[in-house]
């Protein structure tokens, strides 16, 4: 049976529809012209109707996420899910929630698609096993290649076609959707307890620089026609003057398409009394004049969280700063990972500047199609805080009230204090679904045109935007009502999206066999992840 949504105001930025009063028809899991006479009718009076939310960057599955769960037992105690209604599986919450809880919590906010952005190739099998246990959502993963020793070997010899061929091979072997780079070269040096501070610095074991790594991989990705461009976590994250690395990286990209992830963590200067300040005005200027760049924010949320990243040296730095628990997990030949619990405090000058920087990125980047809502879950805070962040963007009085609660010293210094911009519903729809879906190249998502996926969120209009986006009236996934009044009424399983680029650019078979024999501890034949590990696998074609 189909569904017809009547009397709602449709917000579909991909089709430039801004609060258009029209009906939406869904049948057989897709948006259609006419759902038929027997369609179930939802009265969406006083509601806005948007496509389901699409999160471009959230750490929810894989080995390091599971270490974060393991290391935060105290955090699971205060929140749990029991089996009732549509909640078929119990679980626990906290910032590093269990897989089922994660799926439910996203659906409860009207999200229907997420990307796990940081999986080392050797962790792909694990990540896919977890993603099967995340219900309610369509999913995809990015594979980490910025510290790949195979790629470094090819770069030393200038063998770009082999880099390209290897990326095709490894994406197929991991069933990945796109490629992410984290601290290019730096995590490799962490295998000697080192790091690097400049994009032209050479590695220790390889005659290679971060500039070469990002350019080579970005070019290969463009030539292979991957639907999402290079997803980049820059060097020097979390450090004063990291904004200079961002500028150097943008210059090094020379106009190539790139997504700079959780830019908040890289927007720091070293001025002011505390030698730590916001450099968002400078970065926003550059982004505003470089349409090849998109970013997601990584908005800080005050409170307890746990940080998870492939940036091994950064996590050690954070551990030394806070003296918290620290897990490190270097991955042979590929990458690394670190896990450190962390508290963002309103009393802390640095934390307050970080919090303000996130909001400044939203407010100073002019085009919402270039800036997306994330908390880099759970690094800057949990995704469950999205409705609160939306309220801060849409309601400047609420925002000012929040500013008045942070460290007085920070209040004086932050550029945020003079910003008056307020987001519209239309712009919120861009930064939470239309823009992310478009940048991911997921053409059936993020909009409500004919043929789009039947993934819809219906929010009751309210002046309290936090409440409005926390408790959708309805969420529809693949044409079925799965959430009513913010509660899951039906559990469904989503698809896993993957991309299989063309091969045959170079012969790397014997190189790979030698490399595995010499440096890996796993047989090459046992390495690739087969489609049997994916639930409802969905092949996404490359661009021509």
């Amino acid at each position: 049976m189909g569904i017809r949504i009547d009397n709602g105001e449709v917000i579909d930025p991909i089709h430039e529809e801004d609060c258009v009063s029209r009906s939406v028809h869904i049948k057989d899991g897709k948006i259609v012209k006419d759902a038929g006479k027997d369609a179930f009718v939802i009265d969406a009076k006083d509601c806005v109707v948007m496509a389901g939310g699409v999160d471009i960057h959230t750490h929810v599955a894989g080995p390091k996420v599971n270490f974060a769960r393991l290391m935060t037992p105290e955090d699971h105690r205060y929140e749990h899910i029991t089996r009732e209604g549509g909640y078929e599986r119990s679980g626990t919450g906290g910032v590093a929630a269990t897989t089922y809880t994660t799926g439910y919590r996203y659906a409860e906010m009207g999200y229907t698609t997420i990307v796990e952005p940081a999986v080392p190739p050797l962790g792909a099998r694990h990540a896919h096993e977890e993603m099967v246990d995340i219900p309610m959502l369509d999913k995809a993963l990015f594979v980490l290649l910025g510290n790949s020793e195979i790629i470094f070997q090819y770069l030393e010899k200038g063998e770009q076609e082999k880099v390209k061929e290897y990326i095709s091979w490894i994406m197929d072997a991991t069933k990945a959707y796109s490629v992410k780079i984290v601290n290019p070269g730096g995590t490799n040096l962490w295998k000697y307890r080192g790091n690097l501070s400049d994009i032209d610095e050479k590695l220790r074991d390889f005659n290679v620089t971060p500039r070469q790594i990002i350019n080579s991989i970005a070019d290969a990705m463009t030539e292979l026609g991957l639907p999402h461009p290079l997803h980049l976590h820059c060097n020097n994250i979390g450090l004063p003057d990291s904004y200079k690395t961002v500028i150097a990286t943008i210059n090094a990209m020379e106009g190539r398409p790139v997504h700079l992830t959780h830019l908040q963590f890289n927007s720091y200067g070293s001025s002011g009394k505390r030698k730590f300040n916001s450099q968002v005005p400078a970065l926003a200027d550059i982004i505003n004049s470089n349409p090849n760049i998109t970013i997601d924010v990584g908005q800080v949320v005050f409170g307890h969280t746990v940080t998870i990243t492939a940036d091994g040296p950064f996590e050690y730095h954070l551990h030394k700063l806070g003296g918290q628990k620290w897990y490190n997990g270097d991955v042979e030949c590929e990458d690394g990972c670190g896990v450190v619990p962390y508290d963002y405090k309103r009393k802390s000058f640095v934390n307050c500047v970080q919090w303000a920087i996130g909001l400044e990125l939203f407010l100073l980047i002019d085009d919402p199609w270039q800036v997306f809502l994330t908390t880099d879950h759970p690094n800057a805070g949990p995704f469950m805080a999205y409705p609160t962040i939306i309220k801060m963007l849409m309601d400047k009085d609420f925002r000012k009230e929040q500013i008045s609660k942070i460290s007085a010293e920070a209040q004086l210094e932050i550029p945020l204090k003079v910003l008056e911009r307020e987001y519209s519903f239309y712009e919120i729809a861009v930064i939470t679904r239309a823009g992310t879906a478009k940048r991911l190249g997921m053409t059936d998502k993020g909009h409500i045109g004919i043929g789009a996926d039947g993934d819809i969120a219906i929010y009751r209009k309210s002046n309290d935007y936090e409440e409005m986006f926390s408790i959708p009236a309805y969420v529809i996934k693949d044409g079925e009502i799965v959430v009513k009044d913010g509660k899951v009424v039906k559990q469904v399983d989503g698809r896993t999206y993957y991309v299989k680029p063309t091969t045959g650019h170079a012969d790397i078979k014997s190189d790979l066999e030698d490399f595995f024999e010499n440096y890996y501890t796993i047989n090459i034949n046992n390495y690739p992840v087969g489609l049997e590990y994916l639930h409802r696998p969905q092949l996404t074609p490359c661009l021509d």
Partner: protein
Amino acid sequence: MVALQLGGAPAATLGEVKNRADLIIFWGSNPAESHPRHFTRYSGTAKGRMNPNGRKDRHVVVVDIRKTPSVKYSDEFIQIKPGNDYEVFTVMRMIANGHIPDTDMVGGIPLQTLIDLVERCKKARMGVLFFGQGITETKGKHQNSTAIYQFGKDMTKHSKFLTLPMRGHYNVVGSGNVMCWQTGYPFAVNFGKGYPRFNPGEFSVVDLLLRREPDVAVIVAAEPIDHLPYAAAKHLENIPTIVLDPRKTLTTKIAKVIIPVKHAGVSVEGTAYRMDHIPIKMQAVLESPWPKDDIPLSTIINRIKKIRSEEKKTDGGKAA
């Protein structure tokens, strides 16, 4: 596991050991007998990126309470008195942080030997301390692992240093991982209230059995009669037990119901997690007439669900 929860650890996959480690310490671990391939594939003779000559490029130390068969593969053997691991690691942490205690011997080891060992750790390109059940199952238990992980963190101030447990039983890492992503906890999970709760010492299997709390047991691919303390195992003989296992074991002997199932990684494909958390796909190599173990389990669950819903219907929902 508890030690990891408490403080974390500096770790890596075994390929990092193969490629870069130049100092290997086996502490309370006897790989020559317990993990014979470990030494050749990862830690001893394995050749790697910075260890092109294999064994020659590494210094291997064995610390144990007796001269185990692993000692003959080592460069250095340090004998420790039983039950003194925590004390020795505490002193090594003191030395690492620049405090030399006023004593000649610690846990049966000359102080100078420990000073030399710490110095060697500090200077290593990459040092790795593998610790085994000799540590985690003696006096102190998870406190010992905690002390080791803390030592690893202290060492990281000076050099690349890893502390890695030598896990024993087949795919215990896999079961810990699945439990963790589904419940948030790696073991000792109690669903009695309808959601996962965790309390080792209360909800762990030995404690439950000693209190005679369970009135039925489903045992999957485990050998509690052989592995658990006698008093705990004894309770299993007094309650109905359903055992899923392809083999005859001491546990199937006491089972009320035995359901033979396919052996994962032998007669049905599956995934097993290695001790360094890398999942490996296991192929089926033998035919077996029995079902995969998830089939009887889901049949039982579905049957219980059906009975429950029929009960609800007949008594008007009172049971709920």
